[in-house]
């Protein structure tokens, strides 16, 4: 273990420079966020991820946000274990009818002010799965959505852009 730790000291970090925020995301957020919410939350956001029916592809890339290359926490963003600790719900998948109630309850358990970010093409409108007897559709059919990050799945960089825009919009800095 000492060898591995020592190597980490002598080599530079793998973490990469952050991407710029996404202008389109910022515009969507500016329209959705009210000033008071921005003032109260500060620059740190706690995120609760909810898979509402995803194929798990989006989950893999959300996991990647935590790896050393993207290092999400340096932006004040971190994943938490309970919706009761969360400011943001990061929701993936077409919302299945079997998950609709669980998503609604998770949303209700998240304290105000709160935001919902829908990740992936399925979360936007049900994607390939819309029209199925088992699918309720996109996330906005079930809970109000503040920001969509498209892609199948969106790459970690694309997610970072959207989430950085979220922090920026929240502090009002980019306005």
């Amino acid at each position: 273990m000492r060898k591995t730790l020592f190597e980490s000291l002598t080599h530079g970090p793998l973490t990469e420079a952050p991407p710029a925020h996404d202008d389109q995301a910022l515009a969507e957020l500016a329209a959705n966020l009210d000033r008071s919410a921005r003032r109260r939350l500060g620059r740190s956001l706690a995120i609760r991820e909810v898979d509402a029916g995803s194929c798990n592809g989006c989950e893999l890339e959300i996991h990647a946000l935590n790896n050393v290359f993207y290092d999400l926490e340096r932006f004040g963003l971190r994943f938490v274990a309970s919706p009761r600790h969360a400011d943001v719900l990061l929701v993936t998948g077409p919302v299945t009818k079997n998950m609709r109630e669980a998503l609604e309850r998770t949303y209700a358990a998240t304290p105000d002010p709160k935001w919902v970010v829908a990740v992936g093409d399925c979360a936007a409108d049900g994607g390939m799965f819309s029209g199925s007897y088992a699918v309720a559709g996109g996330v906005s059919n079930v809970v109000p959505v503040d920001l969509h990050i498209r892609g199948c799945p969106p790459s970690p960089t694309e997610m970072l852009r959207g989430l950085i825009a979220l922090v920026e919009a929240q502090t009002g800095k980019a306005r």
Partner: protein
Amino acid sequence: MTALTEILHGVRVDDHRPWPRLIVTAGIWRSATTAIAVGRATLLGLWGDAGVPNVVHMGMVDKDTRDIVVVSLECPNLTFPSVGAHHPPAIRLERAVHSLYGLKPTDAPDARPWLDLGFWDEQCPLGARTPRPTPRSAYAFLPTEGQHLHQIPVGPVHAGIIEPGHFRFTASGETVVRLEQRLGYVHKGIESLMAGASLERAAKLAARTSGDSTVAYGIAFAHAIEAALNVEAPPRARFLRALMAELERLANHFGDIGAICNDAAFSLMHAHCGALRELVLRAADSCFGHRLMMDRVVPGGVATDLLADSLTRLRRMLDQVRRRFPSLIELYDDTTSLQDRTVGTGVVHANLVQQFGTGGYIGRASGRKADARKTPGYPPYDQLDFDVPVRTEGDVNARVWIRIREVEQSLKLIDQLIERMPAGPIAAKLAEGHGEGLGFAEGFRGDVLVWIRIDGNRISACHLRDPSWFQWPLLEAAIEGNIVADFPLCNKSFNCSYSGHDL
């Protein structure tokens, strides 16, 4: 001993390839059930048919001759003799057939619904489609009796970034007495969306059955279509598919090895393995233009050839992995606090993996040397040199070591694939046609099975069987007698697919 094919008589279906499908009587169905129950054959799957009403299919493989056969039973009374009554691994499969298609297994040991959690507008959505009675009835979890027992309900929304499912623990103090799973939360109705879909749309649906195995599903689906239409993918396409499959295996195994250690609170491994996983995904992106290589495998071949300069990047990634991974293996092996958590935890007995026909690292960690790349086998693996690692301890540690050894084998395979990559076209042209096909592919998690019927340019019916069907039930067995705090560790060492299972 007489071969399985000699006792199974029935009307052979034309155009079912490459293995036979027989329409059988209830008597032969029972004989087939007995053959599976006594261990002469292994159950491959049991499914309904969205194209032909009221038929149930059962796939099996002879343990000695390795012959594969599908038997089909017509159920005019909407019932069929229960397989689960004699062979427990079939229980969840036939509960799903009952919930989706309305075909009832008679004398089944468990009549509760499966996948149907009571939220769809209609019952039996692929069968009679009857309106759901209101109010919906509560699900009866299995009873547990005894002094000082308490229950812990977990999910469907879990604490980590994972898929949804419900786990009902009954514990005596810290010790788990019973775990019961309830799955189906991510059921998207893939079989109903497949029925009537164009080939192109169906391939995309297959690729989104379980995102972490998108390449494996793509290959199994392509194998089934190519069998049904009697088409062969060109050699270069076979090699490119195998390259994608091994990259997918590498990425997932790195992710798993790190995540298992992380669940034992050893985040150093997690950070290093996460970096290796990222390197593999970036190499995949530079080779095929998508990090997870989604939609790159298509029926008939592959959608994209290697992008320019990508082999150089691929080789650079292989060098980096070869340089860094050995010290991580050493780190895993030398850290006693970590070994203390993984050794002897979550043991799966050999007889269970044999009975369930469990594939992947779970089967191989408990002595079952099954690998679809070897048996039934498919090109190009017949031309490549690789081993299938096996261990016998069946604990979390063994499942970690199987992954470590498989990483080494995949690296060796990728070298051979690059070196021997043939030139030529990357896809064969598919003509419209009629036929049925069965296809396999070995994903990182185990063998994916796809059965398909194609009618002109449309899919008439398609069933996708994730390896998790024969792995999830063993997690219930593995956790028994372990402490609650070791559940995340056991669960991560299994890493079953929720989406692939729930369909």
